[in-house]
């Protein structure tokens, strides 16, 4: 499909060439680059030119890096038009036949044959595993993050779980146990608190950041040493709206390797059975073309105590419920862009055993128009399907790094 590349035409400054493919049919037309219109108009136009007025479509385009990205709202539509140079290659699929697994980063350029063929040709009949349907982006919201990577020892991990009043339970259990410490007198066993069980489908389980037998060291910045199991339980429940647990993972193989930008990919690449993942906040705009980037978040302990989730509900009789105005101000975390429901996200995965897959989120976030967010994930997990499903629930601010 690389043949489709063309020499930029002289008209390219004012018009965008569009080559749209639906099934085996192509349509070509052009758009005014300065006035691309809205997405729903464009969607109608596509249905019109393909003469498929009543077919629900999934619209995708190949961006400059060869990534297959979705177009489903005004923002990513504008982005697609803006980045078309000069040709905008569109791939239309029936929604009911849609193969969500084909979206991803770096897939078109690196694995042209495999990935593009998944879209352009018929699905590989030899594919062993059925494609996984990933939740639609409206379901996305931050559920967990790894924080304070740079100030914690490499053997520890500080995990933040977001409850957000959702239905999903936190879903884990803790128990008493003992851990071995090295003292001048030799090895000494000291009592500790451990994660004893993860509820399948619970928040803790779905993040993949916590595992059975991880030792709990801190709860929202407060050490649990010397506290009873019941005390730690009460602390966690009291912080359940914004729970930050520092653990010493039982599996020390997935630890974050510190020391800068490019290392993150390697670190996550080595993630194995527990499917560890972490997130970072990327200054907007800087990440537009960034490859796999490892970014960390830092929260001073004082800021860990969030008031955000603690808004009590006051009901005036006969009136409507209103949240109580807080007299304290937000802290930095809250000023991060919140998830916008129209943000679309598609995941593609290779059918082969390499299973490198990527997520690309494209959206206009907080008015800094057209910043491209880039998420990257690579995994060698033995059960990629479940791991992927899990990972796609994770989102934090603008960037997902898996």
């Amino acid at each position, binding site marked *: 499909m690389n043949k489709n590349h063309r020499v930029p035409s002289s008209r390219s400054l004012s018009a965008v060439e569009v080559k749209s493919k639906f099934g085996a049919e192509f349509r070509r037309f052009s758009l005014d680059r300065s006035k691309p219109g809205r997405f729903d108009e464009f969607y109608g136009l596509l249905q019109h030119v393909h003469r498929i007025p009543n077919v629900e479509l999934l619209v995708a385009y190949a961006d400059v890096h060869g990534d297959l990205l979705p177009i489903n709202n005004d923002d990513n539509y504008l982005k697609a038009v803006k980045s078309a140079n000069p040709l905008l290659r569109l791939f239309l699929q029936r929604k009911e036949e849609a193969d969500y697994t084909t979206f991803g980063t770096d897939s078109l350029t690196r694995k042209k044959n495999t990935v593009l063929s998944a879209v352009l040709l018929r699905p590989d009949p030899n594919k062993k595993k059925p494609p996984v349907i990933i939740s639609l982006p409206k379901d996305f919201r931050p559920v967990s993050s790894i924080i304070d990577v740079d100030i914690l020892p490499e053997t520890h991990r500080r995990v933040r779980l977001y*409850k957000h009043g959702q239905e999903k*339970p*936190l*879903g*884990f*259990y*803790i*128990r*008493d*146990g*003992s851990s071995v410490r090295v*003292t001048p*007198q*030799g*090895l*000494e*066993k000291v*009592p500790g608190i451990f994660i*004893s*069980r993860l509820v399948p489908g619970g928040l*803790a389980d779905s993040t993949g950041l916590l595992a059975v037998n991880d030792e709990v060291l801190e709860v*929202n910045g*407060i050490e649990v040493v010397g*506290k*009873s*199991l*019941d*005390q*730690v*339980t*009460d*602390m*966690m*429940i*009291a*912080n*359940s*709206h914004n729970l930050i647990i520092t653990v010493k993972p039982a599996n020390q193989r997935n630890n974050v390797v510190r020391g800068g930008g490019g290392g993150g990919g390697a670190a996550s690449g080595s993630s194995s059975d527990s499917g560890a993942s972490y997130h970072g906040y990327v200054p907007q705009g800087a990440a537009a073309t960034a490859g796999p980037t490892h970014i960390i978040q830092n929260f001073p302990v004082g800021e860990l*105590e969030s008031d955000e*989730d*603690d*808004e*009590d*509900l*006051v*009901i*005036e*009789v006969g009136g409507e419920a209103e949240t*109580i*105005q*807080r*007299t304290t101000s937000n802290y930095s975390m809250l000023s991060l862009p919140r998830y916008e429901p129209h943000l679309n996200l598609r995941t593609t995965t290779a059918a082969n055993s390499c299973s490198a897959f990527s997520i690309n989120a494209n959206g206009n976030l907080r008015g800094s128009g057209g910043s491209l967010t880039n998420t990257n994930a690579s995994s060698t997990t033995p059960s990629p399907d479940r791991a992927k499903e899990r990972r796609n629930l994770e989102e934090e601010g603008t960037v997902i790094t898996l």
Partner: protein
Amino acid sequence: MKRFRRHGTESQRDRLKQELFQFTKTVEHGFPHQPSALGYSSSLQLMAIGTRSGAIKLYGAPGVEFMGLHDENAAVTQVFFMPHQVELVTLLDDNSLHMWTLRSHKGLSELLEIGRFLLTGPPGAPPSVTRVTSVLTHSSGELLLLGTEGGHVFIVEVPGFRELEEMNISLDQITSCVPDDYVGRRNLEHVEALQENPINSNQVAIGYGRGLMVIWDLNHRCAIRHIPATQQLESMWWTENGSCILSSHSDGSYCCWTLRTGDKKEEEEKSNIPYGHFPCKAINKIVQLPTAGGPPFLLFSGGMPRASYGDRHCITVIYSKTQVAFDFTSRIIDFFVIRDGPHHTGEPSALVVLVEEELVVIDLQTEGWPVIQTPYLVPLHSSAITCSYHVSAIPLKLWERIIAAGVVQNTQYSKKLWPITGGQNLAPDPPQRDLLLTGHEDGTVRFWDASGVCLYPLYKLSTAAVFNADADLNDNMSQSAEGEWPPFRKVGCFDPYSDDPRLGIQKIHLCKYSGYLTVAGTAGQILMLELNDEAAEQTVEAKVVDLLQGQEGFRWKGHTQLDVREEPVLFPPGFQPFTVVQCQPPAVVTALNLHSEWKLVAFGTSHGFGVYDYLQKNTVLVKCTLNPSDQLAMEGPLSRVKSIKKSLRQSFRRIRRSRVSLRKHHISNTNKIQEANARLEAELAEMELAPVQRKIEARSSDDSFTGLVRILCFADTFLSDSSHNTPSLWAGTNGGTVFAYILYIPPVEHRADEALTAQPAKEIQLMHRAPVVGIVVLDGHGAPLPEPLETAHDLARSPDLLGSHHVLVISEEQFKVFTLPKLSSKMKLKLTAVDGSRVRRVGVAWFGSSRTEDYGESGLVFLTNQGDVHVLSLPHIKMQIRYPCIRREDVSGIASCVFTKQGQGFYLMSPSEFERFSLSTRYLVEPRCLVEAPLPPVFSNQHQPKLEGASSALRCTQDTEDPESAARRVMEHALLNDEKVLQEIQKSLEGDQTAFPENNVKSAVA
């Protein structure tokens, strides 16, 4: 912000905190849990009680009490005062002996342990050789005779616990002087009893378990005579004139042995089995005391016919032709008799009996031997305590009326003054009159005078008469029929058996100004009572309130509601019920409040809450708080079944743990870390057997019992707008919801006929959904609103109604201040999120500065599930102090805690004892008493032990070298130093002085 705070104000605040707050455990009220030993000093007039947990408590005149605790966690098996001294000796379960003394310090006495001793036998001897079974404190005050399981008697010199080996009486010495026909091959067994001859302190009687008694001469170290009793010996008593020895035996018999001088052979008076014919239980202790002009008093415990009355706990008193078997409700620990006269050697005046659950004192000089009411050691738990409530600063009028009502109830008691009178109570008179009310399982409410050190019962209110209960009101306290044999008489008030658990009292609220009282119970009953000085016959009006408000689909599986008696009932003077509200479903009442000014009572259960107007006798408000999906709350108190299961599981766990710890004990002489590892491993192994894990889940609105009402509070505040204050009701639930209602109360002149209404005004749902345990409305100055009628009686400053009010909502996890009327969140303090503890009990208290009379501030006092007490400042909810108070495992202790308005608190340290503590520097109720050493006894007879004189003579002449030289050295040093050292010298010299007798006695004996 902290950075910019000036240091000056910080340290100033710290100083102020020191002036305001101080944590002290001051006094223990009630009856010691599991008493195990009783001792009495007639010269000091002090009684000592030892407990199974190793505590020792001394009691004298009311207000005179001391408390000590052995470091060893072993039961106290015997307590003895040293004759004519302020020392006492305790024997513990672990065979250790301890010496205690009452030392004066700054004009007050304190109980101190001054020595301990463990009897060591010859190397290689079995432990039974030195296992102490009986103790005799010799009248010289310098010797202890210790009879052991092996049959030996060891003699130890006190104070100092020095074994006088050459004086020991070995079993061989005894057997050699006893005719073979008695001894044969049989073992004499352990030393059961030791008695000193009252008229010749050189002679002691040694009684062996097998029955043999030997009289031993301490000076000549030989047996003088022997008494060949053949029954298992239980106790021995040497009569005061020295002519007889009484022995009591395991077959329920006692014998009197006359000691005829000059004759080797003892004469046995006929063996007497008082409750004879059929086999009887042992007579555990026998005492005979002479009277001036008549027959002696004979007292013994036990001896009941085994088959018919083997389960009774009796003490029989026989005097002349009168014989009474006092029948106690719990096991007899020990008893003693107090005698009249300047040296307490006269007529027996009172019998003091320590039974497992109470202390009973019987007046032996008044006809009919009535019981004397005890001023202390009153069994709080005569029926199990289900709740307690404290009211400070009772107006004198009400106080007198309550006392008057109580006096009428206590006519059966003896008029005799309390016979134990040792020590002086130096505590100042309490600054105010405080009442502690305890609710009990049998539906009674007891009123206690909690102003001072003695928790004294004032009045008892029974609510059972309102209901058609199955209780048979005049059952076991009735006098026995004439001619019954044995002549039983029930004594004591400990009666833990409740006929109907629904009668249990759960909540109490008393208005001290109006004399209105409301009590609420287990079956959803709320009684309104009014104090009446006259007996009255009246019908109690019943009103059923349906808290479900039409919620359907539920079935109450709990107990039924109580059946109110419809006919008029005669109520004695005191608090008389006039209305009973019955919640439907009849779930336990979990919150109660009374506003006597508005004449409203608010009540809540797990289903909802209501307000009842007791003037117009109708309900003003009913609100259902039940979550429709909450099945557990609906079904009723089935959780009891669960808790049995749980407790079974826990007890199994405990057994397992104790096995582990037993194993642990045998590990010795290993590396410490290894040991710790092993212990942890054992614990881990145990954990694997019973893995304890905790679910981490945010609370949801669907949790069980979210609708349970935890707190109800009336307040006159700004709920609708900021310019008009209105009466309001606040309710907090288990699910973190606060409901606020505006109450429209007609003006006083139309109060009786115009309708009252309640309008819902606000509702707060705390996001963290933790149970709301307290609601406090603060006025414009940030001070808590006064109690109803308090300002009307000019007893409190009227609240500031100009500034903006705030409401402080206390959940188990957080403290939050909201503005009124907007209810915007103003301040908060997180507790659980920070340290994992949860608020269990909360109260508002006023703290006065110890430095200046005129400064004081209000504080919020609370107790956490970790057993720590904290004080928060008001209205800024800043943490002030924190003290560990109760063990966190002591869940019932934590649940029982009540705070007073003066920063004191009470909690049940055992089912029968309140521990009183104080957080205030100004209000402290603690025993302050002095016990002075008695004058040296004047002996009227010539049979003084010779060693006494010898030792005192030696004391003057013989001084050892060592202390002398040591003192000289210090003196030289002091010349170069200051007077501080001189004081030290003084002390060391005094110390040496007390050490001298040790050596001297030895030489004297030698």
